């Protein structure tokens, strides 16, 4: 098996990011069709029949989420979550950079499905290049009359704004994204109410990941059956996979869901460097619990990953080979989440910093095996008790590392202690010893 290119089909085409090329290759036909010829319910039912699930991490049915939007004449919003900040994830970046109009077209279809008249693309601040490309594409779309008042000559209104984030991982959490978009401190909101009921400016809001929306045009174009025929079971369609870490050919690959994991890591990404073996991998970004060699032959689907105790998440596979010690890896990971914790709720704010401190002690040789028990328990105490999923995003992978690599942790504790103990015995200098030998016994 190899790649199956739908989203990335035209990536070899020069200047794909321009309106001219995108339209020449059939772009905006789906949006035009959705706006002019399809009632909202039909757009929804096609998306539903396609089985398209959210590509941002949670994997929730896109049509179902859009279906939660209440009816009524109030202002409704579509927000595209382009705050791609998950360590290991870089798929949205390429989707926006190479084919921005595909996303804009997806936004139009998403807005029709949601009944929204205002749409926002909340893009990670560091994606400056991609934001500029999007900006230019949005201008082109406005000039063409595909955005604004009366799009495609219809009565439909859709305003689209590209909003740059200010550099916080938490703003990828949908409710924090809304706060950030409103100009507030980007902190997650308490749910319920869910954004579909009370989101941006307290209005009903549909929030979708870049890749989810990018899938919409092809579904409208080729029909839901075409999409549903790809993949297995409830994991339909293709998926962008970002592979990074200890592999020979890191990068983005578009695969059909259900492809064995081994195929992605070894077939597409070339596996770990010569002479090294796979130790573990994160199947869905840094917040997914790690899996090990025994999971390599599982099909890459939402269900199989969940069953194995992890998640497909953003499908960002980070490969760790056997040259990597687990403790620094855990420390690096926990350090990231400690830094990005917004500080609003207690278990995340205090639990992440506590975990980091313990891992530092383990690495510095100042810990005992008892600390490992405490650390495991701290992870348990974080999971499920937080306001949003950020705390769990650290606790789950750290917990999985302790579970899979307990022995290595224990050995690390002992080795580091021994090393520190050695370092800490003050030794006499050679000169001192020589002088003492010279002097002889008193």
């Amino acid at each position: 098996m190899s790649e199956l290119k739908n989203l990335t089909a035209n990536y070899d085409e020069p200047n794909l990011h321009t309106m001219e090329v995108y339209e020449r290759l059939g772009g905006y036909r789906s949006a035009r069709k959705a706006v002019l010829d399809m009632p909202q319910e039909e757009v929804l039912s096609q998306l539903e029949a396609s089985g398209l699930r959210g590509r941002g991490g949670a994997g929730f049915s896109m049509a179902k989420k859009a279906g939660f939007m209440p009816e009524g004449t109030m202002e409704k919003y579509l927000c595209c979550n382009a705050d791609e900040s998950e360590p290991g994830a870089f798929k949205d970046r390429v989707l926006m950079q190479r084919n921005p109009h595909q996303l804009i077209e997806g936004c139009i279809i998403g807005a029709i499905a949601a009944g929204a008249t205002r749409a926002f693309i909340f893009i990670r601040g560091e994606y400056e290049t991609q934001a500029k490309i999007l900006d230019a594409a949005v201008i082109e779309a406005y000039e063409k009359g595909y955005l604004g008042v009366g799009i495609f000559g219809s009565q439909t209104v859709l305003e689209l704004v590209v909003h740059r984030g200010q550099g916080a991982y938490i703003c990828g959490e949908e409710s924090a994204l809304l706060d950030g978009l409103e100009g507030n401190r980007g902190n997650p909101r308490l749910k319920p109410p869910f954004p579909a009921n009370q989101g941006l400016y307290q209005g009903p809001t549909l929030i979708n990941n870049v890749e989810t929306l990018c899938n919409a045009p092809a579904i409208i174009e080729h029909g839901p059956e075409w999409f549903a025929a790809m993949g297995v079971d409830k994991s339909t369609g293709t998926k962008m996979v970002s592979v990074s870490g200890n592999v020979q050919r890191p990068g983005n690959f578009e695969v059909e869901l259900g492809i064995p994991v081994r195929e992605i890591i070894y077939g597409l990404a070339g596996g770990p460097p010569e002479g090294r073996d796979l130790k573990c991998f994160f199947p869905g970004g840094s917040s997914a619990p790690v899996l090990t060699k025994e999971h390599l032959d599982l099909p890459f689907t939402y269900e199989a990953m969940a069953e194995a105790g992890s998640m497909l998440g953003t499908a960002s596979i980070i490969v760790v080979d056997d040259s990597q010690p687990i403790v620094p890896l855990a420390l690096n990971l926990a350090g990231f989440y400690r830094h990005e914790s917004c500080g609003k709720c207690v278990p995340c704010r205090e639990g992440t910093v506590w975990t980091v401190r313990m891992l530092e002690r383990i690495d510095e040789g100042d810990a005992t095996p008892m600390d490992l028990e405490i650390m495991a328990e701290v992870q348990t105490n974080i999971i499920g008790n937080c306001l949003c999923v950020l705390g769990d995003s650290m606790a789950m992978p750290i917990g999985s590392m302790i579970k899979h690599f307990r022995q290595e942790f224990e050995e690390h504790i002992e080795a580091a202690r021994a090393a520190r103990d050695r370092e800490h015995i003050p030794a006499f200098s050679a000169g001192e010893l020589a002088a003492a030998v010279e002097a002889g016994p008193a």
Partner: protein
Amino acid sequence: MARPEIKEISFEIDGREVRAPEGAMLVEAAKSGDVEIPYFCFEPKLGEPVGACRMCLVEIEGIPKLQTSCSTPVKDGMVVNTTSDRVKSAQNAIVEFLLINHPLDCPVCDKGGECPLQDISYGWGGGKSRFIEPKRHFRKPLELSPLVAIDRERCILCYRCVRFSQEVAEDYQLVFLERGDHTYVGTHDGRPYVGPFSGNIIELCPVGALTSTAYRFRARPWDVEEAGSICTFCPSQCNVQLTIRDDSKVLRAGARDNHEVDDGWLCDKGRFGYQSIHSEERLRAPMVREGGALIEVSWDRALDEAAAALTEAGAATAALAGGATTNEEAFLLQHLMRNALGSPHLDARAGGALDAGQARVLARPDLSARVSDIDHADVILVVDTELVEEAPILDLRVRKAARRNGAKVVTLTSRPGSLDPNAAVSVRFAPGAAEAALSALAAELGSERATGPRLHSRAGAEPGAIGAAAELLRDAGDVVVLWGEGISDGTRGAGAVDALLAVTRALGIAGRQESGLIEVPGATNARGMRETGVAPGLAPGLTDAAEAGMTAAQMAAALGEGELSALILLHADPLATHPERPRWEAALDGVSTVIAFTEFVGGALAENATVIFPAESYAEKEGTLTHPDGRLQRVRQAIGHQGRVRPEWSVLAELAERCGAGLDVLSAPQVSEKLFVAVGFYNGLTLEEIGGKGVRWQDRDAASRLPAAELPEGSLEVAPELSEGMRLGTTASLWSGPTVEHAPSLRFLAPAQRAELAPSDARRLGVTSGDEVEVAAGGESLRATVALRQAMQPGSVFLVAGTAENNPTVLTNGVPRAVEITKAGSTENGAGPSAGASTATGPGAQTPPT
């Protein structure tokens, strides 16, 4: 919108079937079943729950994850478990997380002993600590403001103070800075957090992070006792709890939540003003003037001299009462005046008497609103009052109604106010032109009574704005009108009240259960004093007095002319609060007897008083007050009398006795009893009934004893045309007056005189923000600093009332008055440096409005 009906549902908690109001958050509903769920961040008064502390997690059948009970509304048939192993281990975990970075300095922490974190750690924590790393450190303690110290290490980031600042006080000063475990509470640029309600965050703080600088290290909870009373510093009459040590010293004042009065908040004056009780400068013994100087004397001598002087003056005695005079004191004063001395000349209002008929109409139960009606009003009309200065807690109430319940606010004021940004419509009129403005509004509302020509221009108001206000009011359901006593002052006061009543009638307020008026008076117990008979034409119970007396202004004239020879000042200082100061100065100089009841001896009294009785502070007093909405509340004695201070009711009773009209009262409750008999609509009241939360007399059967009064009919008098020139207005300041001057913590807030001007006027006058100006009228003048106000109506200038220096009473005279404003220090021939500066002051030199 009417008050929501509350439906009861039943749910199961910890195996018990419990009934609770539908939609209540679980954490509160649990209390109905005597189940306590611990929490830190939850506080319904602060608005929507935030779910930040995670302390209140519970297990709900059918929901896989634990839920925060602070944000989960209870539903019929819900099954909740708060004691399962899962819940317990989550509670243990949260306490452990909270404590890892919390300094365990309880023995030296002010909060120790009354600390929710301490209590919850004992009640729901694991009792052990596994955190051995170094704790987080911040610089500490720091001043968050001169009133509040902040210890960021103790802070658990529960959001309470920040939410208070953002969503209750709406001063938007407190924010979170940084993120994660570095997050801390602070202000933009580290400026001091100064606002009229800042002290509430001390009480909201569930740990020792925010402490009162005034109370810091003064006592531990087990050294003190709490005593409930009523704050008497302003007409809001907030319920307070005083912290008392050794039965003799007030160490702290806190809120005592009464939904019908204060909603649990307290302003900083109410919170820190208690310091004035123990001021060194407070008078602690009676004094008489001997050889030109005041000397401390025995009570007997002071009473003798006062009684002798009063007996001699007899019917030529006048009396002014003010401030926090209790109903009992007011009742005894009018008894002393009318029955012992035969003088009808007593007044409790600075600006002029209210017409007797109007007073009765305004007291009608169907026309008066209760404070909590503000919560549910559709439209709140604010008429010429700056609530945040005059009755601060009502300002919060209006903000709450607008923010939480979508009430529309209409401000109809001469000065731009702090509620304007929250208002759907703001109407500005010229100072002193409330009568015309209200007449114009009545006309827009279709009142047949308002027939005058060009009412908008007589008010100096935009016709469109009044039209927009009327538009909102016309179709509104419940309307609450908050009106400032000031409109009824002066020669056109009766006309303005008449116009207000025309608006009232046009709005159909009489027929609406939850609509009504609330007067925002100048004096704390203005309503009580009026109802107990301290008014020139009104006897107790708002009945007509046997003999009409003089108003304050008439007294000043009569005293000056020798027609009256004695003056009793019961908590009143006419030089500070009454218009026409020059006339009062002359009156005080001329009068032979001035008997004053006061806590502090200042300016006029020091020079003119012949006998001074030391007044009680409110912490020493026993009596009742009547809230502007008609609620009688009890002021309770919390500490022993300081020095040789005696209860004022007993002093007044003794004076009456010595002047030949003893009342035979031996205790404060006996006076209350007599008062409840004398005032018809208070009949049958008892102190027990009033209790800790007060009783509105309108809600009792005796309310029918209010003398009948009809809403007036017939055409309104036509308000006069506007005068030319810069029209003078005054605005109250919460921070002026002796309480603030004698409370060290608050002194920094005492206002200096400022002249608020519209930028266009300032430009024309060649002055700008910060300039010293001289404001003059009728040969009198004062100094003020210019403050520009973008929203000020051109042609208006506002001065701060009640300032210690440069008090505008030298300029006010009860009629709309034009003043001259000149840059201070400019030479008469106009060739001086400031004249040069004024030509250079163009539009570009204007400072931004504050």
